[in-house]
């Protein structure tokens, strides 16, 4: 808005950006649905999650305005992702590798 000098004034983005993001999200939803019917072996989960991560990024950056937000907000978003990855990957690293050796008590 013209009468807002500060960086945090309402950031009005063109409507067509929202429609473009929306269009991409819908197309990707049906693409991932179609791809799920193909037999890609172990790659099905990676393709599905890659598309989901891309879709989620579009929502976070444009619908949730993180692209235009303060650096502190961006840092908070990244911190949440970091902790989520710690939770998922450290636990799964244990689960995945536990069977590699005949550890007593397994």
């Amino acid at each position: 808005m013209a009468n807002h000098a500060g960086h945090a004034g309402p950031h009005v983005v063109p409507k067509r950006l929202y429609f473009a993001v929306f269009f991409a999200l819908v197309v990707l939803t049906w693409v991932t649905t179609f791809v799920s019917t193909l037999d890609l072996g172990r790659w099905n989960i990676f393709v599905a999650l890659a598309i989901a991560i891309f879709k989620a990024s579009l929502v976070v950056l444009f619908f949730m305005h993180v692209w235009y937000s303060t650096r502190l907000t961006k840092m908070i978003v990244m911190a949440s992702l970091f902790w989520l990855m710690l939770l998922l990957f450290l636990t799964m690293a244990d689960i995945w590798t536990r069977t590699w050796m005949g550890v007593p008590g397994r």
Partner: protein
Amino acid sequence: MASHAADTHADPHVVSTIQHHFESADQQKDASTIGMWVFLVTEVMFFGGMFLAYFVYRQAYPAAFASASNNTSLLIGAANTTVLICSSLTMALAVRSAAVGKKNLIVLFLILTLLLGGTFLGVKAYEYHDKWVRHEVPGHNFDCRDESGKACIDAGHTPLFFALYFGMTGLHATHMIVGVGIILFLISQARKGAYGPAWHTPVELFGLYWHFVDIVWIFLFPLLYLIDRSAVPK
């Protein structure tokens, strides 16, 4: 820094003020936004625990998860995802309408968001009912034999998938039901002209919440409906 009164044209009783501990409207808004994001971080952790449980058990019982997840309807899942994405679009447009001061459009887009959210929940209720009728709810009535009476693969662990299915989609739906309540409040406030370019923080922060709930579904959809579609053990 623009003075707050100068760009406010709503009626006087709804004009927001800067609370005494803030220097400017911008600072006040930044603080609110950061507060909302910190709340969303706790939500990421909340859902994250369930996603972790899903990954751990899927890793442990892949056959049970593959056969169970094929009982979900691909078409209904994809259609409902589309509905939720539409509601995210209308929510984003509601926030934009508030930022440019179009009161009637705020109300319109919030009502559309409400209707689309309600549609999603309705479809979800239909799916739950379907699962109930087909004895796919874990517990006493659970029975995964097909019409010919043949037991499903790894019947002992199949209920785990459905427990996670109901737990994760149920927690997601609970968030949407809470969201529906908040939208109703926002609609009533917006009709009174409470939100304009100078101040529409509640609409904007609720938008963050609504989009977050959309993101959770963006991950639930592939995990519960898609990834084992072609991996049914014969």
